[in-house]
């Protein structure tokens, strides 16, 4: 689960991580009261959406930049009004962009130098890792590729926690001066506490900055959380913003379905994550384009299959459907009956290819054949994929 920058900063402040003073406004009426909390002078105006590249983004009405530094409060108000309710397109949002529904005003910090600091899971060692670099404000992947010597990494033993010597490795690696070191040490420790206590999957500060008076601050903050751990963090769940999620994905999660929208026109309905991914792949392999990832899980019920069909069909790009089920424990005949009911209930007009394999498959295929529905049966995944690609071509 992702949260907004202003929410992340509030969380950081709670843990004692220094951030620039900021106030979020969730309606146009809140702009002036929010700005009243700042002294006259520079104010940063930041669009709040769950995507990076905001500063370089463009609004659909042509207004440039989702992050602006205003020279006065009057200018800040003007920027906020132009951003609010407007749709911001960045390198990460896709062409549809995201509607800005919150504006975050922050004090402009004097910047001496920018750094990069992130905490995430290192899968190879199964430990948290802190990744830091003297090259802040730029893409860390680029730094890793071109100047790997500028990256410092420390791997944290979960039985010990972040050790003093590891904090020192980071401080010396980033070449802070003695006053900065003191401030940065505190910030790094507190940041690690945020990561560990909240079950975060990533805490990324880009940039981390030093100010002319040697303060160390998180100028931007991106935090995402482990979905599996949300059950023990109701305070994090409360930060969820459904406006930032695809409504189809939200609807799917209500039915315990795993749905991710893609750009193609062949919808997939599959049991199992690995099989669902490879169903998308095989469609592409035979020249088609998958419209979604959809995993109905190992024990899909008839109700889930019906819900899945409804969700798939809300995507206007869909021109055909590929159902691929390996009924291991599930009875293929039960699934077949579910498909027949679902197709009738939603009045499906699009081409449908069904590939069933596994437990009681013969009865399942008979149920499909006897239904009178216009559907095509596939023998193997490859056979079925070829058929659906041909039908939508």
């Amino acid at each position, binding site marked *: 689960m992702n949260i907004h920058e202003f929410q992340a900063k509030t969380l950081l402040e709670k843990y004692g991580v220094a951030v620039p003073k900021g106030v979020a406004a969730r309606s146009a009426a809140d702009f002036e009261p929010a700005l009243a909390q700042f002294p006259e002078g520079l104010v940063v105006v930041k669009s709040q959406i769950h995507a990076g590249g905001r500063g370089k983004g463009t609004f659909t009405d042509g207004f440039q930049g989702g992050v602006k530094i205003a020279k006065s409060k009057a200018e800040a108000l003007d920027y906020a009004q132009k951003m609010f309710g407007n749709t911001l397109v960045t390198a990460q949002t896709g062409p549809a962009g995201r509607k800005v529904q919150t504006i975050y005003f922050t004090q402009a910090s004097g910047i001496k130098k920018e750094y990069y600091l992130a905490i995430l899971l290192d899968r190879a060692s199964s*430990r948290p890792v802190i990744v830091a670099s003297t090259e802040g404000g730029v893409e860390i992947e680029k730094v890793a590729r071109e100047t790997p010597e500028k990256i410092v990494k420390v791997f944290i033993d979960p039985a010990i926690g972040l050790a003093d010597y590891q904090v020192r490795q980071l401080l010396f690696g980033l070449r802070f001066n003695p006053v900065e070191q003191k401030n940065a040490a505190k910030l790094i420790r507190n940041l690690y506490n945020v990561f560990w206590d909240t079950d975060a999957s990533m805490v990324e500060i880009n940039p981390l900055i030093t100010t002319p008076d040697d303060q160390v601050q998180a100028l931007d903050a991106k935090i995402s959380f*482990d979905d599996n751990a949300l059950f023990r963090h109701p305070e994090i769940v409360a930060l969820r913003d459904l406006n930032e999620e695809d409504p189809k994905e939200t609807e799917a999660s209500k039915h315990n379905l795993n749905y991710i929208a893609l750009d193609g026109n062949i919808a997939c309905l599959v049991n199992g994550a690995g099989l669902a991914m490879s169903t998308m*792949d095989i469609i592409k392999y035979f020249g088609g384009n998958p419209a979604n990832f959809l995993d109905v899980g190992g024990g899909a019920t008839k109700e889930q299959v019906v819900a899945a069909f409804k969700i798939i069909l809300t995507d206007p790009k869909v021109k055909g459907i590929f159902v691929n089920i390996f009924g291991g424990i599930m009875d293929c005949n039960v699934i077949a009956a579910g498909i027949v009911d679902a197709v009738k209930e939603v009045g499906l007009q699009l081409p449908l290819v069904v590939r069933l394999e*596994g437990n009681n498959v013969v009865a399942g295929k008979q149920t499909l054949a006897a239904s009178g529905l216009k559907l095509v049966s596939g023998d193997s995944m490859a056979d079925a994929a070829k058929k659906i690609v041909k039908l939508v071509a």
Partner: protein
Amino acid sequence: MSILITPETKILIQGITGAFGARHAQLSLDYGTKVVAGVTPGKGGQFFEHKEHKVPIFNSVAEAAAATGATVSAIFVPPPFAADAILECVDAGLDLVVAITEGIPVRDMVRVKRAMAGSKTRLIGPNCPGVVTPGTGPESSGGCRIGISPGYIHKKGHVGIVSRSGTLTYEAVWQVTCMGLGQSTCVGIGGDPVNGSSHLDIIKLFNADPDTKGIIMIGEIGGTAEVEAARWIKENCKKPVAGFIAGATAPKGRRMGHAGAVIGGKEDTAAAKIAIFQECGIEVAVTPSDMADALRRSARAKHKKLA
């Protein structure tokens, strides 16, 4: 032989009284697996009954293991309690723990993994379909089935299968069975970012097992575990190996069902992994329908028999 488990292996099931655990305990008993104990704290002294079977239930893993000689546990307990269930098995000194539970927090698994370092207990999973060593009876019954795989799709034979995904494992198993070959052991290692045994851990066991004559390795996007296994195979494994990677069309940064199936960087994409498989002499299945055929191609090229 086989790896990890044999038809004689005695298993206990943690969470045997829950709906999910009970259903699969029944299926394992029907398959002929020696399910000798159940563990549900607070229900010690009761029995899990199914047809002619009467499986005693214990309050703790240590008690169950001491009383029945079980050396392996299958975990079906809900995610908030699953990490603790694994640690209890480590404390009881079991040989193998197979964690089926899906949705265990990553932080819990980070701690479990650290706590297991240096212990004699091996972990498979979590979020996995389990382990099957097929038997010689009808529809492969008489074997050891731990977890949620459908038993009947297996056939006793000499192909070892290791995979992160449940249903893709079934695809591979079924293709191998339909080809008239069979499996030595099938291992689902699970789709989570932090898991017990890696592809490489299992490949090493298959390589050392004289009864395994060919290996199918199924992976997906995210992480570098498949790459690590492929490099080891190149240096150390003479057996035919086929590989498949799911997720060639997955968008970057999105979690594709499995918590571990997320593309983070350049090296964990399907294309990168497939290229490394090819470099390492692994025959790549171009589609999931091609996994058993790919293994046959590899065997032919290496002049090895799979039967």
